[in-house]
């Protein structure tokens, strides 16, 4: 009876371990190509190559509208807007691409290059969280999340294993995995927080007066130009209260700025 019970334990552990990994392995899933968007992607690229930038822009937006928000599509959209001489929208879409493909070298280059063309001298907004968790911005929220899911699954699988068997090696393994769990968990928390509170927006108009109040007859405090990234504190009756990194604040018509973060279909709607 005892031998049968031990045999059963192995079987139980194996099944539970498989379930533990299987759930998140299936959910994280290897990437698969959505063939529905390949053709419009190629057609939009072809239009771009032939110089029909407006047509390319329409094509990329159609892909985004299907729910497939790819960083590369935003990148191409940024390129198309740049070629169509809309610096503000180019930077807006490059910033959106950076949230999805933060390590893309082409994107880094293009964003740096387009930023160098902004007329306003505005510094980057960084805080203690960016300095402390400097690696967090090199990964997008999805990557960090699934990394955490993987480490989480590994940790609980080890703990599950240790319920039945307690070799010494599993103790040290559990310690290491716990450390990884804390690291990925913290990174996830930081990324999630940053994504949730991201209120940055980009000035789209070639030039806009920033007013002291939400009225056209109010005093003009300063002037901003296309491509400048500012914080959007709130929107009231068609006016947006914006803030610069040096804490200068003022009101602009809400139509001349657009938030970098926009709600898309899918997961983490609250965070997004």
């Amino acid at each position, binding site marked *: 009876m005892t031998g049968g019970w031990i045999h059963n334990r192995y079987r*139980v552990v194996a099944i*539970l371990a498989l*379930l*533990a990994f299987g*759930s*998140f392995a299936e*959910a*994280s*899933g290897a*990437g*698969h*190509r*959505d063939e529905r*968007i*390949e*053709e419009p*992607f*190629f*057609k939009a*690229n*072809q239009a*771009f190559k032939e110089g029909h930038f407006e047509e390319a822009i329409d094509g990329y937006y159609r892909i985004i509208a299907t729910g*497939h*928000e*790819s*960083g*590369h*599509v935003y*990148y*191409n959209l940024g*390129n*198309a807007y740049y070629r169509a001489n809309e610096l503000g929208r180019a930077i807006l879409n490059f910033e959106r691409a950076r949230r*999805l*493909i933060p390590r893309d070298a*082409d994107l880094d*280059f*293009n964003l740096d*290059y*387009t930023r160098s063309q902004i007329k306003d001298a505005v510094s980057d907004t960084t805080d203690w969280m960016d300095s402390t968790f400097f690696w967090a911005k090199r990964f*997008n*929220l*999805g990557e960090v*999340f*699934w990394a955490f*899911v993987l480490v*989480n*699954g590994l*940790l*609980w*699988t080890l*703990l*599950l294993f240790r*319920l*039945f068997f307690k070799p010494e090696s599993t103790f040290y393994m559990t310690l290491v995995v716990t450390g990884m769990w804390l690291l990925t968990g913290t990174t996830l928390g930081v990324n999630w927080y940053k994504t949730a509170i991201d209120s940055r927006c980009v000035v789209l108009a070639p030039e806009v007066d920033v007013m002291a109040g939400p009225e056209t007859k109010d005093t003009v405090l300063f002037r901003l130009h296309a491509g400048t990234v500012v914080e959007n504190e709130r929107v009231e009756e068609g006016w947006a209260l914006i803030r610069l990194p040096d804490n200068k604040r003022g009101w602009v018509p809400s139509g001349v700025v657009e938030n970098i973060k926009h709600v*898309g279909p*899918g*997961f*983490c*709607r609250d965070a*997004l």
Partner: protein
Amino acid sequence: MKKEFIKKIAVRFAVLVAAIVVMPIESVCVAADISVSLSLDQAKVTTADTAKLVVSVTGGRHSDSDPNIQGLDVFRVTSGGTSSHIEIVNGQVTSGLEYSYFLQPVRTGTFQVGPAQVVVDGKTYRSNAATLAVIDTPSSVGAKREILFLTSTISSKTAYLEQELIYTVKLYRQIRITDVSLELPEVKGLTFKQLGKHSEYQGLYNGESYTILEVTYSVVASKDGVFAISPASMSMTAHQASRQPTWRLFEDPFLSLGRPVRLSSESIELKIKSLPQVGRAADFSGLLGHFKMEATLEPQEVRVGESATLTVKISGRGNFARTPDLELPEIRQIKTYADQPVVRVNTDNQGTSGTKTMKWALVPEREGQYQIPQLKFSYFDIASEQYREIATPSFLLAAVGSGSAAGYSIGAATGAGTTRTMDAGQHLAGRPSQKEAIRELGRDILPIHTSARQLEERPIGFGGTVVCLLALLGPVGLYAAAALSMRMRHKSVKLMPATKSKKAAKRFAQRSMEPDLTADKIVLYVRDYLNERFFLSLGALTSDDARQIAEQKGVTVKTAEELRGFIKSLEDLIYTGKGDEVSNMGTSARELVDRIHKEAR
């Protein structure tokens, strides 16, 4: 002398004034005879000519109505206007009225024109009649032509079905014309379509200079056979300045006379034949003319997942609408995306020409070399009267891995397949020793991403919130479930003896309360109790066994002895046949078992 001259002038002046002032009473002053005459400017005309008819009313300056002229049924009549005049001859004043008409014959023959009847002051006056002979328009080939004539020609009098022919109508003129309108022949089975706008230029015909108005049409036959293209007709007003001086008052000598003219060209016989069957391909599209096809593939080397563009352009002249949409066959390991064909059609005085551009995006899915199949189509070349097939050149598309990049290696492969590495000194020989700093000559953004593989990278939110929560909390839940079930199992194993023990005593108590209790049943129940309570497997129970077991399990000697005595008494009852007489023994048994339960370990 002087006085006589002045007197003569004064008289003439007075007469002139009198003629003007007293005009209403001229009918009294002038001769009272009214006469009507009819005249034609020509006695013989062709069907293309126009004759001028004049009805003159002499002796009157008005008529009650327009003249009624007989014999005009066989003509197209156009009014040439009305004029009146006054003549003063030797002091005699005469007046008159003229009605002009232009007659265009509709058929050949000899016709009587007139007489004309005119009513003047209620009295009817008749004119004379005139004869007009109408003959066919003579052939114009090689003959000296008039100052105005019309020709029509066709590019070929023999053609194939759906072959585009050029029908040209030319008006030659040496005089001014206005109000020009053209009537094309209507032929069943032939479709006329104007090519471009008409043109006007100076040209020579039989050595004479003419202003030529030219209009071209494409003609396409929809069935085979022989067609008679009737003459084209052109109507216009021809203006020819009058060569005769006139002294008639109130008639502007500088106005040119405008006559309506109707011209006809020649008729043409056209023979249309069907396309030959010999040499005709099964998939022949019906295209006739002359065509060529160009194709390009760019780039010819791509990375896996990136696209190359195959562009095919068909251009030519003929029935361009029949140009087929070429279909690229399926190529293994290559995805193809066809673009909408772009068609441009032009028409000029030589016919219809056009270009059709078709594009395909080719995306290789794996590394390798891919043969792009040729695209072909056939057409009927009118010049050589043969079917021709044209095809695109054969292209090779190379797909390299996404990680590798085409580049140049220092080593070179020999024919035997080994690699020869150049000597280091050899390789570096000739390199400049002075290095230059790299100067930035320009800046621009990097190009777009084109690989479909990059679309594989899923964005945030793959799977949905439920899946993500499951993935996150699933392992935790599993661990919790496993830990909980283990704990419960452990607990139940630990508690098993106590549980079993409790159950045994409880079970014995229930059994001992049965109404039909007998001595052997009690012994049996005690045996079962001991088995369950102490995990034994006793078959038969004797009194001594019972005492021994009780003592071993920690029960006091007294209780063990009591148990032995109880069992013994039950045995006595059984062996003496009084097993049914166990009235209170059930209660005793329960009490005894309770004590055993409490005392046992």
